[in-house]
């Protein structure tokens, strides 16, 4: 695992997130549930909690949009880049964007939202890319069965190095 230069991290225990634009590929309820599941993977192992809000500015702002979407890194159509996220910090820190030209699914077909969201939230919490092929933070997408999915060891160690373990707090 790796961390960003300066090891940026959140300095509070409750992190808010808000989904400002949804994908038409899934029902809003499915997106809400899946995003919550992705955050839960982390809150299972570190002493942070995540709360969805529906108005105002959240710590982590989330959207699904194609091509230009308000930052310096426009998306590139289907395939290629699937999503990106900022490291922790004020303002746009932690913000997470999904390319809505992808076909977002909850299955093996298309691009599995849980796996990509969990990867991006790793960045939003301070994890850089890992060279471990088995790690969630490996840069390329590969589907794995998400039934009972838990954070791989490499990623768990990486995020606990930043925030400590939930079980020890």
């Amino acid at each position, binding site marked *: 695992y*790796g961390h*960003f*230069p300066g090891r940026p991290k959140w300095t509070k225990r409750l992190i808010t997130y808000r989904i400002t634009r949804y994908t038409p590929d899934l029902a809003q309820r499915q997106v809400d549930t899946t995003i919550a599941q992705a955050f839960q993977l982390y809150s299972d192992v570190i002493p942070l909690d995540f709360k969805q809000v529906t108005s105002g500015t959240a710590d982590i702002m989330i959207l699904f949009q194609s091509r230009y979407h308000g930052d310096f*890194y426009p*998306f590139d159509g289907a*395939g*290629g*880049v*699937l*999503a*990106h*996220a900022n490291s922790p910090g004020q303002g746009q820190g932690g913000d997470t964007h999904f390319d809505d030209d*992808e076909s977002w699914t909850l299955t093996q077909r298309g*691009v599995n939202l849980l796996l*990509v969201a969990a*990867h*991006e939230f790793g*960045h939003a919490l301070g994890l*850089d*890319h890992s*060279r471990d*092929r088995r790690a969630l933070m490996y*840069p*390329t*997408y590969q589907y794995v069965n998400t039934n009972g999915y838990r954070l791989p060891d490499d990623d768990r160690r990486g995020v606990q190095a930043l925030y400590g373990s939930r079980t020890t707090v």
Partner: protein
Amino acid sequence: APTTAPTMSPEDQDLAEGYLSQFYADVGMTNSTLRRIRNNSFTQDLQAMQAFFGLEVTGTLDKETVDVMKAPRCGVSDISR
């Protein structure tokens, strides 16, 4: 028997240059002089990419490297900024 190394297509070369500039380039390289420096470092960036993904580090574009570049991925750079 010796074989001729496959030549990568111009499309693959363009893909590689775009990929490396997006995921393996330093930030702040904006003026023409620095762009030339960037072009000269294509081989170094390619080696860094091949090392990151556990490929054979040759600094030469090959099919295996291009295949990795074509895989869907996260848009965050592989080198810390």
